[in-house]
């Protein structure tokens, strides 16, 4: 009896959590003759034609490619750049280390929204507005990831590296051959959240991009909604295209997602 109650509560929350996604998917596979306003989760005549049709209205696959490019570059720059900086902070002794740590720590405290307009001016100064490079750069090495990796490197035992120093390994060799392989777990978390953050980002691409062929999926979809509210099937197909890769990634690597939340790799 108690168990039945527990499961009914779990099922109710399950319906609230994924019901909206299912409804969106149902809408996306409804044919042109079916009324999308009727609350019917199972279409009479399911079709994937809307997924092809949405590409006739906006270049949705170009948007997807742009998002994929931005997100992939973001993963590489964050993993490598943040690991390098984190390694120096954790493992190398030098004058100015405190200064570097303060720069990263204060960067975390600056809310992105507060520097939005000012950052746009910087990008314009570099001539990088309306480019994918401009989209990637500000988040390319997040200070939060630097500190996450610094902590991971700090947790490694010092003896292995001391032996390598005696063997004559230089700092770069110790970094790539010893330190980096030992923090794989944190790197996976950083990679995953860098990808997700970049794929999901909306405000910055919205401000920095102006030409449609440069759009990422998020702003492309917002644009699609503004233009073709009439055909909900197409908007629904677009949102499924945008969310499906992340859902698959999440199903494959969910324990790293949960770990990332625990380590504070994402903020809300």
């Amino acid at each position: 009896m108690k168990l039945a109650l527990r499961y009914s509560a779990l099922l109710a929350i399950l319906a609230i959590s994924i019901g909206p996604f299912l409804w969106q998917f149902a809408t996306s596979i409804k044919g042109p003759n079916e009324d999308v306003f009727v609350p019917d989760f199972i279409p009479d005549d399911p079709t994937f034609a809307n997924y092809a049709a949405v590409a006739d209205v906006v270049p949705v696959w170009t948007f997807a490619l742009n998002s994929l490019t931005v997100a992939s570059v973001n993963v590489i720059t964050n993993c490598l750049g943040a690991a390098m900086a984190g390694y120096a902070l954790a493992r190398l002794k030098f004058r100015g280390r405190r200064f570097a740590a303060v720069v990263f720590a204060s960067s975390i405290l600056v809310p992105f929204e507060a520097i939005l307009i000012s950052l746009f001016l910087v990008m314009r100064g570099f001539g990088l507005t309306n480019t994918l490079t401009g989209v990637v750069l500000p988040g390319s090495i997040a200070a939060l990831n630097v500190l996450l990796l610094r902590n991971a490197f700090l947790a490694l035992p010092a003896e292995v590296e001391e032996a390598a120093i005696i063997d004559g390994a230089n700092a770069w060799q110790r970094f790539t051959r010893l330190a980096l392989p030992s923090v794989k777990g944190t790197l996976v978390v950083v990679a995953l959240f860098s990808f997700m953050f970049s794929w999901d980002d909306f405000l910055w691409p919205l401000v920095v991009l102006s030409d449609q062929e440069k759009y990422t999926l998020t702003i492309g979809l917002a644009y699609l909604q503004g233009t073709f509210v009439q055909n909900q099937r197409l908007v629904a197909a677009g949102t499924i295209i945008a969310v499906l890769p992340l859902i698959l990634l999440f199903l494959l690597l969910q324990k790293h997602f949960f770990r990332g939340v625990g380590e504070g790799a994402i903020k809300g």
Partner: protein
Amino acid sequence: MTHRPYTPWLFLLPGLAVSLLFVIFPFLNMIVLSFTDASALGGGQFTGVDNFVRMAQDPKFWVAARNSLLYMVGVVPPLVLLPLLIAMLAQKVVPGIGIFRTAFFTPVIASAVVVGLIWTWLLDSRGLVNNVVEALGGTRIGFLTDSTLLLISSMVVTVWRGLGYYMVIYLAALANVPKDLHEAAMVDGAGPIRRFWSVTVPALRPTMVLVAALSAVNGFRVFSEIYLLSGGSGGPGGASTTMVLLIQSVGRGLTGEVGYASALSFVLFVILLGLLLVTLKLNRREEQL
């Protein structure tokens, strides 16, 4: 010597460059610009506190500040309490619990845009929710056309999207609550509600403060949900606009008033910093107790 003196700086160069160029410099520049009348085309004269005087007289600013504040106040209590209840439900290992936890987390990984579009469709005047309302004998509700309802709808979306995220934080914290406390309370004859208030809540108080702080800061910074639910307009007549919406609409584009937008950004920063300091203070008091 284990490395040359310049080696650490080579390691740090990319990361420091990004932080200094794209965070620290824009931040300092924002503060400077907020005291000028700079436009999108450049230039700008030092105008002292003119932007802040203008802000005090700008009804749009007060609407945006009030809405951001309301938003924060509105989302914090449900985001502190509901994910805790869900976490308690999902904590006990029963068959299939992994599937439930995964499903509860799904809204977190979807982008604010996807979530916004899904809910725009659900809350449409002819959408699923209104169909249900009508089937139950009610009349259709203008969730997205009334400025107050639009704000509330958007808060619901924010809460919906945050449930899974804060659930995971609570799950980690619940795992650390000593079991014998619960057992002792049970022996003393405390019912489940009594145990919730006298065992679980006190043990989780630091986590609840953390969740309150995170959701307050994120609530005040709200942008995507309102932007999408209102179709980019900030509601009828801009009545549902928020601070970040106002900043980007004032400062963007060729007609952007960079000076004034910077002043608005400065105020946003000060408020968020204030929230952060309050949280730190609360946390410190927790530690002293």
